[in-house]
């Protein structure tokens, strides 16, 4: 069981880190710049925030299947496939929440930075720093989505014992086998992990806040 917990954390943390590396810059860009097709891009992003996991699972399955365009990677039914699916699910969420946080930063900060001769990349970094609580919320939300994912990881990971079985898919399996006690224990543990992660980040926030004089 501890091996399942470790793998669950490895997969979902990897996924959320990759999703943050993509989603935070994307969200910052959307939060500070105006451009002609922004409305369409936002609609796509909001759709992505509510993306049905099984659709992502199906798409990743077809991409990674031997006959799919990425079949040569041989990633189907491996943890890498699960990371990819969870990352795709988390990116829109991370980007969307980051965007909201960044666009809520007072305009004067952006304008002052631009006046001082900062380029857009530098402005973005300043805005992320100003909106850091929101960005942390974005990362936590992405992690929550990744670690609680069942359908997509079951489809692309295959729930292989000792290799791609994570806590959510183990709960499905144990419920199917009628082992409700074990399923419940895993469920409580999953809840506990989510709670601990959120609590840690909550406690971190004043530390970050106090870091700037």
């Amino acid at each position: 069981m501890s091996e399942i917990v470790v793998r669950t954390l490895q997969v979902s943390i990897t996924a959320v880190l990759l999703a943050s590396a993509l989603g935070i810059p994307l969200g910052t860009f959307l939060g500070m710049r105006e451009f002609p097709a922004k409305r369409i891009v936002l609609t796509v992003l909001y759709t992505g925030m509510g993306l049905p996991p099984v659709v992502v699972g199906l798409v990743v399955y077809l991409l990674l299947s031997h006959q799919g365009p990425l079949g040569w990677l041989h990633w189907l039914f491996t943890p890498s496939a699960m990371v990819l699916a969870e990352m795709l699910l988390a990116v829109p969420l991370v980007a969307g929440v980051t965007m909201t946080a960044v666009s809520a930063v007072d305009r004067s900060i952006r304008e002052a930075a631009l006046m001082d001769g900062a380029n857009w990349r530098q402005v973005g970094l300043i805005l992320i720093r100003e909106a850091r609580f929101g960005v942390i919320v974005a990362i936590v939300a992405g992690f929550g989505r990744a670690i609680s994912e069942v359908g997509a990881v079951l489809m692309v990971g295959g729930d292989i014992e000792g290799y791609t079985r994570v806590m959510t898919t183990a709960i499905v399996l144990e419920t199917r086998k009628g082992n409700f006690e074990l399923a419940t224990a895993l469920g409580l543990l999953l809840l506990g992990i989510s709670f601990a992660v959120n609590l840690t980040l909550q406690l971190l926030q004043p530390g970050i806040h106090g870091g700037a004089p």
Partner: protein
Amino acid sequence: MPNPRRSLTLASLLLVAGALIAFFTGTRNPPPRRLVLATTTSVADSGLLSVLLPPFERARGLQVNVLAVGTGQALAVARRGDADVVLVHAPELEQEFLRGGYGTLRTCIASNTFAIAGPASDPAGIRGARDAASAFARIARGRALFVSRGDGSGTEIKERAIWRKAGLDPAGQAWYLASGAGMGTTLTLASEKQAYALTDTSTYLALEPRLRLALLYPPEGRVDPLLINQYAAIAVNPDRFPHVNFEDARALLAYLRSPAVQRTIGTYRLDRSPRPLFTPLRGRCLR
């Protein structure tokens, strides 16, 4: 105050580095070689593979990745070249799979029987039925609740064959429910609804203590040829999918057919169950 730009650049570098480290430590431990075995939930949930596979894995220095899905899905996965070997139980679908050139070396490993489970009060009176088809006919006549797998599994295919033999089509009837789920979930649902269901005996025995159901047909000690459940292993054809691990798939088939393993299969039983779950077939197919 630290330079915000530098600390943010540092933070994002750490983020990416962390992602890469986690990615390569977390996901880069595939075994030296893997063999993907797509099989049915009934086989996987019986626990038999956890007994049979570890010695094989040790002897050949590989990891067998067991995908527990329905027969229909297992064959569909193999049809795309995404599995190396399948262990399934639907002779007609297996023949079609072989005819399509997707598989080779079909080897029958074991059999057990299907049975009809239902409420102990047996409202449709199937206990004394002549055969499985007439038991189904009594359920239909009595409009008693029946839960079908409805997931394209080998069990559902067997169930449909029995309805056909009875000359009935229960689809759309109010008393006929489809769970769209595995055997365990289907039996749990049947137990909750006090409905009838067709089940393989090994899953039933594994779940028995939690179910408010009884095995009603066939009666103890009787064998209904219509209800024989045969498990066959098939290697995915390397002529069609050159990338598959055919060497290890062939070795697994030979291993499963070997006298020692067949003896293990013939004696494998659950702790609380007096009878073995499977009958060894020694590679010979009944159908």
